[in-house]
C-alpha cells in the first residue's frame, strides 16, 4: 500500500485543484525583458491560469529542450538574476499562485556571497544550503518549487526548508520511473506531482504519448493531484489528457514559442500577450471539456 501524501503546504495550490482541472502555464521570467515578461505572465492569468510556473533561468538547464533553453538564455542575457526574479514575483499582478521552477545550484548558492565573506573572516567553509532561498521565495509570495535536477534522494534539506516556510515541493515522475522510486518520490512530494508525458526534454509535440496514460494509471493509487506536462500544445491535447485522468495540465514550450515568435517577428508586447491569453483560453477550455467528459463517463458507469 502506497503512502498517502499529506495535504500540501500551500492552500492556494490545493484550491487550484479543488474543483475542476488545473491549467498550469510556464514562462521564463525576464524573457525577453522584464517589462514584457510581466505583461505575458499577467496575460496567462487572464487566460485562466490556476497555477503559474515561473522559470528562474540557470546557465546549464540540462532538463530543457531547445525552446525553453532559448528562453532562459534570452532572459539571462537581459540580466535576470534570483533577486530580480523575486522582485518580479512581488510586482506581477496575478491571482494564480506562483511556483518557481529552477535548478538546484541557484537554490543552493542563494545568499552565499554574504555567507562567504563572513566565513572568510571566521575561516570556516561557507555553506548556505537551500534555506535562504526558500525563505526569500516565501517572502516574495512563491507557493511552491519545481527543481528538475534534484531527485528525491538528495531533497531532504530542501524539503525541510519548504515545510518550514510553507512551500510545496513538486517532483517530476517520468515514464521510466520504477515503482520503488515512485514510493520514494511520493514520500517527498507536496502540492502536485508533475507527470512527464514522455521521455526526453521539454518541447511542444503534436501527439499525446501512450506513456502518459500508463503513468497516470500507475499513479492512480496516490492521493495527490497529477499534472501532466511535456509536449502539450493545443486544446484537444489538454482535453484528451484530462479525460484520461489528469488533474491538471502543464504547458511550457507552446507558450514560450509564442514569446520567441514575438522576438523574431518584432511583435508588440500587447500582440504577444493577446496570443498568450488566447492559447491559454483554448487550453483551459480543452481541459474543462476533458473533465466534463470524465465526469459524464463516471456517472454513466
Amino acid at each position, binding site marked *: 500500500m502506497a503512502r498517502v501524501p499529506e495535504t500540501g503546504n500551500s492552500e492556494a495550490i490545493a484550491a487550484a485543484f479543488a474543483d475542476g482541472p488545473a491549467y498550469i502555464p510556464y514562462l521564463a521570467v525576464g524573457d525577453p525583458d522584464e517589462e514584457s515578461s510581466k505583461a505575458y505572465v499577467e496575460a496567462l492569468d487572464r487566460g485562466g491560469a490556476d497555477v503559474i510556473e515561473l522559470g528562474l533561468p540557470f546557465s546549464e538547464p540540462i532538463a530543457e529542450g531547445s525552446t525553453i533553453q532559448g528562453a532562459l538564455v534570452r532572459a539571462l542575457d537581459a540580466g535576470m538574476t534570483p533577486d530580480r526574479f523575486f522582485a518580479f514575483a512581488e510586482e506581477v499582478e496575478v491571482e494564480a499562485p506562483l511556483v518557481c521552477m529552477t535548478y538546484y545550484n541557484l537554490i543552493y548558492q542563494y545568499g552565499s556571497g554574504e555567507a562567504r565573506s563572513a566565513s572568510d573572516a571566521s575561516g570556516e567553509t561557507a555553506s548556505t544550503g537551500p534555506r535562504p532561498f526558500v525563505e526569500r521565495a516565501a517572502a516574495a509570495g512563491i507557493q511552491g518549487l519545481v527543481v528538475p535536477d534534484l531527485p528525491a534522494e538528495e531533497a531532504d534539506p530542501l524539503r525541510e526548508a519548504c515545510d518550514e516556510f510553507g512551500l510545496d515541493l513538486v517532483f517530476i515522475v517520468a515514464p521510466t*520511473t520504477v515503482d520503488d522510486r515512485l514510493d520514494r518520490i511520493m514520500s517527498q512530494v507536496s502540492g502536485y506531482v508533475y507527470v512527464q508525458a514522455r521521455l526526453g526534454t521539454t518541447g511542444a509535440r503534436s501527439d499525446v504519448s501512450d506513456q502518459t496514460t500508463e503513468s497516470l494509471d500507475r499513479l492512480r493509487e496516490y492521493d495527490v493531484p497529477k499534472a501532466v506536462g511535456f509536449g502539450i500544445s493545443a486544446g484537444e491535447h489538454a482535453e484528451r489528457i484530462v479525460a484520461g485522468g489528469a488533474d491538471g495540465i502543464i504547458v511550457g514550450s507552446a507558450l514560450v514559442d509564442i514569446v520567441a515568435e514575438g522576438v523574431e517577428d518584432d511583435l508588440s508586447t500587447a500582440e504577444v500577450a493577446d496570443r498568450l491569453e488566447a492559447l491559454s483560453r483554448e487550453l483551459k477550455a480543452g481541459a474543462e471539456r476533458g473533465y466534463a467528459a470524465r465526469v459524464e463517463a463516471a456517472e454513466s458507469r
Partner: protein
Amino acid sequence: MSETEPTTSEATSATDGADAATPSRRPGRERGRDDGKFGRYGGQYVPEALMPAIEELTDAYRRYVLGNEDGFMDEFRERLADFGGRPTPLQRADRLSERYDLEVYLKREDLLHGGAHKLNNALGQVLLAKYMGKERIVAETGAGQHGTATAMAAAHLDMPCEIYMGERDINRQRPNVFRMKLNGAEVNPVTAGRGTLKEAISETMRDWATTVENTHYVIGSVVGPHPFPVMVRDFQAVISEEAREQSIEKAGGLPTDVVACAGGGSNTMGAFAGFVDDEAVALHAVEAGGSTLEVDEEAGVAPNSASLYAGDEGVLHGARTKLLQDSDGQIMESHSISSGLDYAGVGPELAYLVDEGRVNPVAVDDDAALEGFHRLSRTEGIIPALETAHAFGFLEEHHEELGERVVVNVSGRGDKDLDAAIEETDKRDIAEAPDMSMFTGGI
C-alpha cells in the same frame, strides 16, 4: 582520512616489491563505491528521467567492474593490452632530472593508442555498454580527445556512436573531428550557449534523457552523477597501478611526489588513485591558471579553469563539487590555452581530497604551460599535449619544494595542439621556443 587507518605504504614498503604493489587494505582506493559520496561532494543531481538509467548503470558497475561478472574486467584488461598497447612505460627523464637535481620519471600515457589516457575510460565504458546490452553510444567532447577515444573504442567494439561537440570547439579542433568521422562516428555540433564543453555535456545529457532505454552515455571524465566519478576513476586507475609497481621495480621505491594536470580530473584521479593510501606520497593537481586567476563577475567569465584552486562548492552536471560560478550560482565561462582543461567544474573526489589536504591544488598559467611544452619537446624529445604541459610548468616553478623522486603523468601527446602551440608561441617571447613566425601566416 582518520589517523587510525593503517598507512599501508609503511606497513608494506619494508617487504618485497610485489607485496608493496598489491597491498591488502586500500580504503582510499575504494572511496565512493557504495554511495557515490566523497564527504560533502558527489551525489546524483539529475532529471528524474535519467535516474533509472543511473541505477541500472550503478548495478552494472557493481557486477561487471567490481565483481568481474562474465569476466568483464579480464576482457577489459586484455583489450587494453592488445588494442591499447598497455602497459605504458615509466621512463626516467634524464635531462629534466639533471636540470632539477631530482629523479624525474614520466608515466607515458601519451603512448597509449590514440595518444592520450582517454582510451582507458572510453574502452571500459563502451565495453560495459556492450555487456549491458545497449545498442548505441553517445558522448560529449571538448578538445576532441575523449570524442576520438570513444569513436575508436566504438569502432573497435562495433557500436554505433554519436559525439556532441561545441561548434566553437569543432572549429578549433578540426583534425579530431576528422578522426572521429574516420572511425565512423557522427559528430553533432552544439550551438547553444558559447559552444564549448559544458554545453556539449548538457546536450549529451538531453540526448540520453530521450534515448536512455537503448543508449549508454560515455562520460569523458570523473565528473557527473554517481557512478560515473568512481567508475571512470576505476578505469583510469590502471595508470597509477602500473606506475606504482614500475616505480618500485625501476626506481627502487615509491615516488615522493606524483604530478598530474587537472581539468575534469580523469588523468589526475587515474594517476593518484593507486597512491592515495600511500600517505607519504605527495599528490599535486595542476590546474589551468589561464591568463589570470581574477574573475570578471559582470561578464560571467573566469579567464582560467582552476576550480579546485579558486572555485566554490556547487552543483553542476549531476554532482556536488567545486565550480567556477558567480555569486548567484550561474556557471562561468572558463578559459585555458588547452581546451582539454577548459571546464568550470572538477571531479567530486578531487574536491574532497583537496579539502582533506590529501591533494595539493596548484594553478599554472598559460605562459608557464607553454614554456613547459617547449621545454619537454626540446630536452626530452616528447611533444606533450598543452594540458600535460601544465604539469611541466609546475615542475619548473615548484621543483625545490618536491621530494627526490617525482612521477609526472604525461597524459597525452601534443600533435593535436600544434596549430594552437604555433599561434600562442608567436605571441610570446619564449627562450626555448623555435621561431614560429614563418608558420603563422597560414600554410
